């Protein structure tokens, strides 16, 4: 039995917000694959929970008439990976989601939980950062949208005010259209392991596929929160593909600030940043038709 002092099963988002307002200090639980672990470890022992598990209005992935892709936060990793719209437009996000945990975990953990936990190693986070996703949140005073560049405030802290619930992850059309992408998760095991480093690269190519246009690069575990690498992006954008490949890794070193942990030293992470940036760019460009 879990050490929980109360759990309220919300019937709708409005109901969840109301329940959170009535019980300040209560925590949202979605798939529970972070929360229940923390309860078990004792970090959240005795917590009060508002469950949004199973709320239909927070599920599903659709494409708006303007081309924006809207992902319900309760979509599991598995839902994201196998979704037709994701596969057709942003396969890199589905591939990243497919690297979390193992199959049973991917059937339970949600993409909303993955961005609300504010954890730098979250496997979908770096790709969502590169895609310039927008987080739509709803609270007692209505709905607001937060660009992902302003979402992460610090380790485990995101731009969710009290009583707010994430209701959509929006991928604006201009964030993904014309790009091909690749995500690399570097970990000691190929399943059931947390990333030592995560790198997501999106690339746009010239018509003849010999030059880059816009390149976007984002990391997990290269700093306290998932982050973009603006220096590396500038160094790799609008260049002949070979030059972009040579430039991106060294430039990325100036963007990141990894630390040493029991998983890996800062030095090793820096080496991964340099090496994997180029590999992710090469693969992203290959998917876009470049000969590299």
């Amino acid at each position, binding site marked *: 039995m879990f050490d929980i002092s109360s759990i309220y099963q919300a019937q709708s988002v409005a109901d969840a917000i109301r329940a959170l307002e009535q019980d300040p200090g209560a925590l949202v639980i979605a798939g529970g694959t972070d929360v229940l672990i923390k309860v078990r470890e004792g970090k959240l022992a005795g917590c009060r929970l508002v469950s949004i598990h199973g709320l239909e209005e927070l599920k599903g992935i659709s494409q708006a008439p303007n081309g924006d892709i809207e992902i319900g936060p309760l979509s599991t990793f598995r839902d994201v990976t196998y979704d037709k719209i994701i596969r057709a437009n942003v396969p890199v996000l589905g591939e990243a989601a497919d690297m979390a945990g193992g199959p049973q975990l991917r059937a339970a953990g949600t993409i909303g939980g993955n961005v609300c936990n504010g954890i730098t190693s979250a496997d979908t986070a770096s790709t969502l950062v590169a895609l310039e996703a927008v987080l739509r949140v709803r609270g007692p005073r209505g709905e607001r949208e937060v660009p992902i560049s302003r979402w992460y405030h610090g380790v485990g802290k995101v731009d969710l005010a009290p009583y707010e619930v994430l209701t959509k992850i929006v991928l604006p059309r201009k964030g993904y259209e014309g790009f091909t992408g690749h995500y690399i998760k570097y970990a000691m095991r190929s*399943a059931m392991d947390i990333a030592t480093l995560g790198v997501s690269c999106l690339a746009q190519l010239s018509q003849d596929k010999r030059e880059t246009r816009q390149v976007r690069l984002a990391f997990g575990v290269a700093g306290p929160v998932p982050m973009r690498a603006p220096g590396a992006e500038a160094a790799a954008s609008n260049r002949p593909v070979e030059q972009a490949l040579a430039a991106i890794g060294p430039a990325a070193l100036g963007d990141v600030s990894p630390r040493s942990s029991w998983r890996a030293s800062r030095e090793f992470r820096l080496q991964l940043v340099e090496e994997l940036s180029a590999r992710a760019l090469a693969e992203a460009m290959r998917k876009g038709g470049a000969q590299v």
Partner: protein
Amino acid sequence: MMEILRCTVNGRPVEVGIDQRESLADVLRERLGLTSVKKGCEVGECGACTVLVDGTAIDSCIYLGVWAQGKTILTVEGLQNENGELSPIQQAFVEEAAVQCGFCTPGIIMSAVEIVGSGKRYTREELRKLISGHLCRCTGYQNILNAVERAVNEAHKFVGREEQEQ
């Protein structure tokens, strides 16, 4: 914090009083006596507690019992034929000597049920990934993989034959 859970377990409708703080693994083991559902790590890493919820394999140790409201649950106890014989998937584990201490076996069998039920064929590498959410502390992975592969192939032979007959 009691609540009535109504769901279908191994083909039978079930109505049982549960505490809202219980995991689905707790409910299945303690309330319903389905002890094929093993508690290993209790943090979603070892896969010993794997059951199917509406056909999908999940770790029942990190799934609240109350979330199973109205759902269909399958455990190894639900695989036996009416006459008590093992299912072809269980039989494949016997044939391939894929069982050592046996603790991880029920969980892996449930993942295999989902894999075989998909009706698809898989490479060995794909099967490795599909059972990567399970730990076998006896490290008998080769035979386990052989068993899952055998179960998939046998199901496919059977489906193939049915297709020809039509």
